[in-house]
Structures are given as C-alpha cells and as structure tokens.
C-alpha cells in the first residue's frame, strides 16, 4: 500500500499558481512546496508541470532546481519527475559515479516488472540518447558487467508457468557456483538474469529445502568485499522479497554514521506511491521503532519535513 496522502479536489492550475508564488521574491516558501507536491500523485504532478509551463513559460523543474538546494532539492527533483523518467535518472546517476552504485541498477532491473523495465529503457533513450545497456556495459567489466548488462537487458516471461524439475536442477547449479567462488559464474548469471521471477522463486525455495539455508546467506559466505557477489546477492534478494530488501536498505541508510541520504531518498521517493506502507510495517517489526520516528531522529530541516510528508504525515 502507498503512504502518499493525496487531496481530493485538485486544481492543477491553482497548484501551479501557488508554486509560482512560493518561488517569487526573496527566499522560497518551502512549506508551500512540500504541502502541494507532497500530496500529489504522479499524474497530477505531470499536469502541474504542464500548467506551469503554459502559464509562466518556464519549466517548473528547472525553477525548483534553482530555488532549492541540498538533500531537499535532490528529493524534490526526484519526486517531481515522472516515475519512469526518475528511474532512468537514478540509473544514470548510479552508473556515472566514479564508483558505480551497482545496487541501484540491480534494484531497477529486478524490482520493476518486465514492462516497467522496458519503459525505463525507453525513457533512458529519450533522455541520454544512448541505451541503458550500452552505458552499463561500458562502465563495468568482468563478472559484474556480465551480471548487470544481462539484468538490464532482460525481458522476463511474466506468466505463471513454472517447471519444478528445472527449479531443482538450477538450484543445484546455483549452489555449485556460489560454493566455489572461483568458478566461472556464467551459469549462475544465466539463470538469474533470464528465468522468470516465479521460476526463480521456485528455484530459491528448492535451494532452501535441499540445503536448509537460504541462498542469500550462502552467497556472501567466504567473500567480504567482492562487488560481484554482493550484487548477486542483491539480485536474489530483490527477486525473492524486495520489500524485505528495501527495509534493509532503509535500516542501513539510517544506521550509517551521517546517514545515507541518497539511499533514504531513493527508497522513499520511489515507493511512496506503491508499497511504502508495507515496508514501514516490516521496518517496525524489525526495529521496534517506526520508520517515521527513525527518519525524524536522523535528518532535519525541509528535507525531513518533505520525507515525512511522503511517509504519510498529515499537517
């Protein structure tokens, strides 16, 4: 379930006018921006952008970029983008870092449905005049390249057909690949990047039945900082139970000394309209404190107010 609280009677023209007023003169009325944008769904946000452009002949996004700053600005920028465009931007930012953020790529490729991933690839073409896979492949090498490239290129079967015998066979192949880290990982990559999600879940279950331990636990044994195996594990986690995965990302982002704002923003902004409520419940079960409280204790200012609004706080 979503955490976003949206208003019933929305006039996008009125919203555009209010936002314009908020950006005029000395300083910015951040409260008004949060109050409006923090309570609009994706469709309305797009309409507001269009209305703003019609009336003021200016791109609202560019205006906000110049008025706001810091983590607050980054969060609002990501929020106001169309969801598919947003994922394309997140992917691009992740690849272009001096040390690419592989987990973001894995998240996008594995959490989204096959059609959603396709839409992101299209949005990436439009924005960057290159394909997502060519940028991913060019920025990586070795096994991690093979994994990420195949993940972003996948267009998995999304039907319900599952082959139980195949699940058993491939669980064994994965077991052997993970056990002996030095082995050629191509079979593991093949299975994880081409099979349908339901087939893979059946495979992971077969693994657990056979080996009495979860495949994710097994993947990291014996490796410490191996980027490839970390990404492999993220792949398995995102396919198996991505809400549990996101809870962990949030937990680590908050626990970290100084907070990982990028991760915090990313999860909250991308899931607020989808299933952040479920992730919140997992968070509370795991940490005995609500996500809202944890976020409130960890960050401050307009950035905090904005994230709390997306988390469902009413004023």
């Amino acid at each position, binding site marked *: 379930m979503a955490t976003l609280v949206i208003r019933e009677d929305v006039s996008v023209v009125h919203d555009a006018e209010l936002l314009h007023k908020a950006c005029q003169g000395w300083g910015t009325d951040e409260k008004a921006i949060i109050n409006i944008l923090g309570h609009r769904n994706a469709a309305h946000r797009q309409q507001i952008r269009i209305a703003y452009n019609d009336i003021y002949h200016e791109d609202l996004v560019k205006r906000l970029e110049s008025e706001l700053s810091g983590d607050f600005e980054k969060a609002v920028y990501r929020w106001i983008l169309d969801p598919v465009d947003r994922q394309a931007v997140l992917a691009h930012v992740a690849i272009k870092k001096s040390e690419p953020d592989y987990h973001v790529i894995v998240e996008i490729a594995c959490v989204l449905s096959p059609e959603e991933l396709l839409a992101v690839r299209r949005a990436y073409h439009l924005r960057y005049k290159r*394909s997502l896979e060519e940028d991913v492949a060019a920025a990586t090498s070795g096994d991690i390249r093979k994994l990420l490239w195949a993940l972003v290129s996948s267009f998995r079967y999304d039907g319900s057909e599952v082959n139980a015998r195949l699940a058993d066979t491939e669980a064994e192949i994965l077991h052997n690949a993970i056990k002996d880290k030095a082995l050629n990982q191509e079979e593991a990559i093949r299975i994880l990047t081409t099979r349908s999600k339901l087939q893979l879940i059946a495979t992971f279950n077969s693994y657990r039945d056979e080996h009495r331990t979860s495949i994710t636990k097994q993947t990291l044994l014996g490796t410490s900082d191996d980027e490839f195996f970390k990404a492999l594990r993220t792949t398995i986690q995102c396919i198996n139970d991505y809400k549990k995965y996101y809870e962990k990302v949030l937990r680590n982002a908050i626990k970290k000394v100084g907070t990982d704002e990028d991760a915090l923003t990313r999860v909250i902004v991308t899931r607020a309209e989808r299933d952040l409520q479920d992730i919140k419940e997992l968070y509370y079960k795991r940490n005995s404190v609500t996500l809202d409280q944890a976020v409130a204790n960890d960050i401050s200012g307009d950035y905090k107010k904005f994230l709390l609004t997306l988390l469902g706080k009413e004023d």
Partner: protein
Amino acid sequence: MTKITSQDHINVALSECIYLIKGTLKRMAQPNYLEALTKAFSGHGIEEKSLISILGKSHPEHITSFRKTTPFFIDDERQFERWDDHHIKLLKREFLRFKNAVVLWAMHPWERDARLVKDALKKGPQEYGTIVEIACTRSSEELLGARRAYHSLFDHSIEEEVATHIKGSDRKLLVALVSAYRYEGNKVKEDTAKSEAKLLAIALKNVDKKKPTEDEEVLRILSTRSKPHLMAVYKYYKDVSGKNLDEDLGADLIFKVTVECICTPHNYFSKVLNTALKIDADKNTKKAVTRVIVTRADTDIKEINGEYQNLFGVSLSKEIEETANGNYKDFLLTLIARGN
C-alpha cells in the same frame, strides 16, 4: 562450406536422367512433355497450371511411360511403378511452399519473428544465422514485439531459451543480440566510434592469442551500440585497418553475419536470397526465399531488389520468375512489387 547432401546426389541423378529421357521421349513424339513436367516439379514451388493441363489431359500410355522413365518412380517387384517415398516428400515440401508463404505473410510480424526464432533454435547451429538476422535487422520496437509474442507462444523468454539451448562461444553473442534494445536516434559520438574501431582492429589482429568471440569488448560493442554508431565504427575500421569489418570477422560466422545485418543489410539479404535460389540449395536454405521476401515486403524489399541487381546483374524479380513456379512464384512477385 556446403555439405554434399543426398539432395545433391539426387539432383545430379535427376539431371542425368532428364538428359537421357529427353532423348527417348523426343523419339516418342512428345517433345515438351517431360521438360514441362520436370520444370513443374523442380525449383521453388509447383507449376500448378501445367500439371493440370499436362497430367490431367494426358493419354494413359503417356502417363505410363512417364512413370517408367522418370526417377520419381521405381520398379516394384510386383510389376508396377511405385512412387519413390523420398520424392513424395520433396513434392509435398514444394506444394506446401505457397501455403507456408501465405500463412507467414498473414501472421502478425511479432508472431512471425518469434516462430522463426523458435524454429531456428530447434534446427540447431546451421540455422543460428537466422536468429542473428532477426535480432539485427529488426527495429528495436519490432524486436521487443517479437520478445512479447515469444512469451505468449512459448511461455518462456527468448533469452532464456537461447541461453539454455545454445552452448559454446556463440551463446554470449546470441543472448546479447536478442536482448538488445538499441538506441534508435541518429546521435553518434564520433570519438567513441573511432576509439571502438581501433579497439576492434586490435582485437581482430590478436586472433591467435584470443578469439574475437571471447573478447568482452568486441561483444559489448557489437551488441549494445546503436546501429548508426556501428555504421560509423564500420567506416572508421576501414580507415584504421584497410579492410572491412565483416571481412576480418570472416572466420566467425555469427559475428560476421551480425556486422553484415547491421551495417549492410541489403547486401546481406541479397546474398542470402541468391544462395537460396540456387538449384543445389538444400531444404533449409531454400526456406530463406519465403522468409526474406515475406519479412521484408513491407520494409526494404525495394532496396534489396536494387542491391540484388547490383551484385548479380539480374533483378530479384527476374530471378524469381525463372526459378519459382505457379502460385508460389506469383505470390512472391506480388510481395516484391509492394515495394514500388
């Protein structure tokens, strides 16, 4: 290299028989009979009209002598001439050519491509070129459509089946090619194209140290870059190494076909058609005629026709006129004419 198949032996035997029989029948005062029948049964498709008029109206004696003298029939120990089973199969294939073309033509392009890939996977390594053809000559959206259709038809994704069924060094390239969703705009970074051309030149020079198929960079460039980008790479490659990229990839057929399909598709299609129209083409090669003409009729058949003329001195239509028969021939010519 073409294998000499039993089909080749039969074709040779057939030609020899025809020569002998022609002589005999000339003496029997039916000069065009056997020629017409043989033409009706050879080449691509069946000459339905002449079969109706000749066989349908023939004197029983002439049909008997036809059976006694052609290799289509064999002498049975119980004193009758029996159809050779192998020839019945051949004929069935030729009779079905028109039906297959019609069915393929009426199909949605997505279903068409999905089924063609599935067939190629089933037939094995000699047909993998078809998979490359479909992955590389279709637009990004057309290839996506084929992938969707594949889900519906076969309950699996194309990439998982390609990855499972294909072993060896071709697997990586084929999986990458069918998964590609290339950028389709015209924007090309010339510097990147130049440096990638150099990279390819170096990789291909080191053929003794490492096969190009094992080179991750070669793989990356060929299967992720946009087509305009690859055409620029092709051009710079010629400057850097003096030869064409597809020539230097000659040893590796799948890589060579990839480059041909992306950079010189009309040339590629013309060559495929020319090989398929040859009299000694085997049954799988012959199918390319239907495949190429049906799948390109509404895209670039006109350009292929023109390129065919450039390469072989005769237009594709004229070649079809001479080697195909009956309804099948008429259907193909109609499809080719759509390009006008």
